[in-house]
């Protein structure tokens, strides 16, 4: 699968990254190489195989904790870009 610069630009946009013309070219080649490498998985017949989400089977882990509301910890947001009364102030979502 050969990725072209236009596709890389689209991926960059999805990933919220801005790439220079030079970067687009480099990534197009490198991502094509990596996709070429992983292509070997298509040699296997996987039709009847079940998927595994992790290495462990889940029988040795606890169920999800109950969903309980907790007081937020202001300490973890003290490094936010902008705070007002312990609320995070985000940049404008819509253009002014």
């Amino acid at each position: 699968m050969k990725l072209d610069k236009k596709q890389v630009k689209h991926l960059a946009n999805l990933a919220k990254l801005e790439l220079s013309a030079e970067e687009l070219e480099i990534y197009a080649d490198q991502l094509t190489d990596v996709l070429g490498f992983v292509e070997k998985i298509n040699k296997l017949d996987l039709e009847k195989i079940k998927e595994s989400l992790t290495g462990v089977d889940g029988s040795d882990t606890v169920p999800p904790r109950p969903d309980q509301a907790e007081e937020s910890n202001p300490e973890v947001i003290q490094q936010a870009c902008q705070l007002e009364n312990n609320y995070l102030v985000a940049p404008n979502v819509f253009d002014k």
Partner: protein
Amino acid sequence: MFLINNMDIKKLTIDKIQAAYKAGDYSCLELTKEYLKAIHADETNAFISINDHVLDEAKQADQLLGTDQATPLTGVPIAVKDIILVKDQKSTGGSKILSNYIASYTATAVQRLKDAGMVILGKTNCDEFAMGSSNENSHFGPVLNPHDVSRVPGGSSGGSAAAIAANLTPIALGTDTGGSIRQPASFCGITGVKPSYGRVSRYGSMSMTSSLDQIGPMANSVKDTAYILQVMAGFDPKDATSLKTKSNDYLNILEQDPKKLIIGIPKEYFSDNIQVDTKQAIEQQIEKLKSQGFEIKEVSLSYTDYALAAYYLLMPAEVSSNLARYDGLLYGLEANKDLSLDEWYKTVRSTGFGAESKRRIMLGAYILSAGYYDAYYKKAQKIRTLIKADFAKVFKEVDILLTPATPSTAFKLGDKVNDPVQMYLSDVFTVSANVAGICGLVLPVARDANDLPIGMQLLADSQQEEKLFSLGNYIENLK
């Protein structure tokens, strides 16, 4: 150069340190100061930051030593990979995007070691968010291999491995997602363990690939990795993937005869693509064990060839989701406040992430895209099933697998930096263990023609770490 006031800090182990404390050879404060001196003189770039409170911690440890509150780890210095959080200390993950981030809590694994009395020297350099095999992807510059500074220390826990090899710390923590503890341990000639998935809590370790990441110990001896894992391991309510089952007594097992362990040699790990010196060194080890009376069987792991391909689908997919949190709003790099939200995100992420992170994020975005999810991600999950079954079958026949740790010894800085696939191939022997969730240990066994360390890998089934320690300790003492 390390012999000051009769204090030799070369290749120190926990037992040696405790014996020195007991004999009154030096205090924890004196030892800590000696390490700090060595860190300041370091030319390998192994550390990103020093713990400002380390001397206070050392003084506290000195007060505990000799009392009934002391543990075997009290007063033992440790360095922590900068991807693992330690409260009130800078935790950058090797990234520009977090270059000024101060952690607001401590990882469970670190907290348990601190509670046991360990003294944190500082945070070690690593590839950005643990993504790399050479430590060349760090915003804070590459780490140099202490055995040959023109070569890489391996990655992503390159700073932790180099710090031990350069005698800047006796113990370090790393993280291993595809080989990030074992490959640098091999390149730097030290010992490192990737615990079974879920054995150690991931709480407070910056997530890279949540279904594969594990924190693990790195040290100068197998016994030291056992000491550290014993304390770190165990269920943590803050990590839903941590295992409920209590871990075995790793230290007790070291006293037992490992000869009842049946050793398997997976033939797929001995192809012609391995450096000749490495292959010979591992084969010599196998012969040595045979002559010692071990039962050794050739086995086959037929899907080995597909593990790295599956890894390079699973990992970027999870990376693209996990790294979405770095948007510069709650913490980290900021942009001009007059920008729109979209421009803000793009500015922060484009300037904050390095090349490898961007590559993997985009790859993940591609793999998870509509139409490609079934073609790539789902198939990779199915290959994970096949690889797990492969190991499960083999572990019915043998107790432990013995393989080379890496196809070659440490390569030159810059050699593979522009060729991602070549770089990825240096993890070809380590990555299966992560995909299958099993545990692995790497220890140094020989040197190549350039006098570079050659590492050997032992693999055991999930939650069978004691087998790694038992055989590893035996091999270490056989030399």
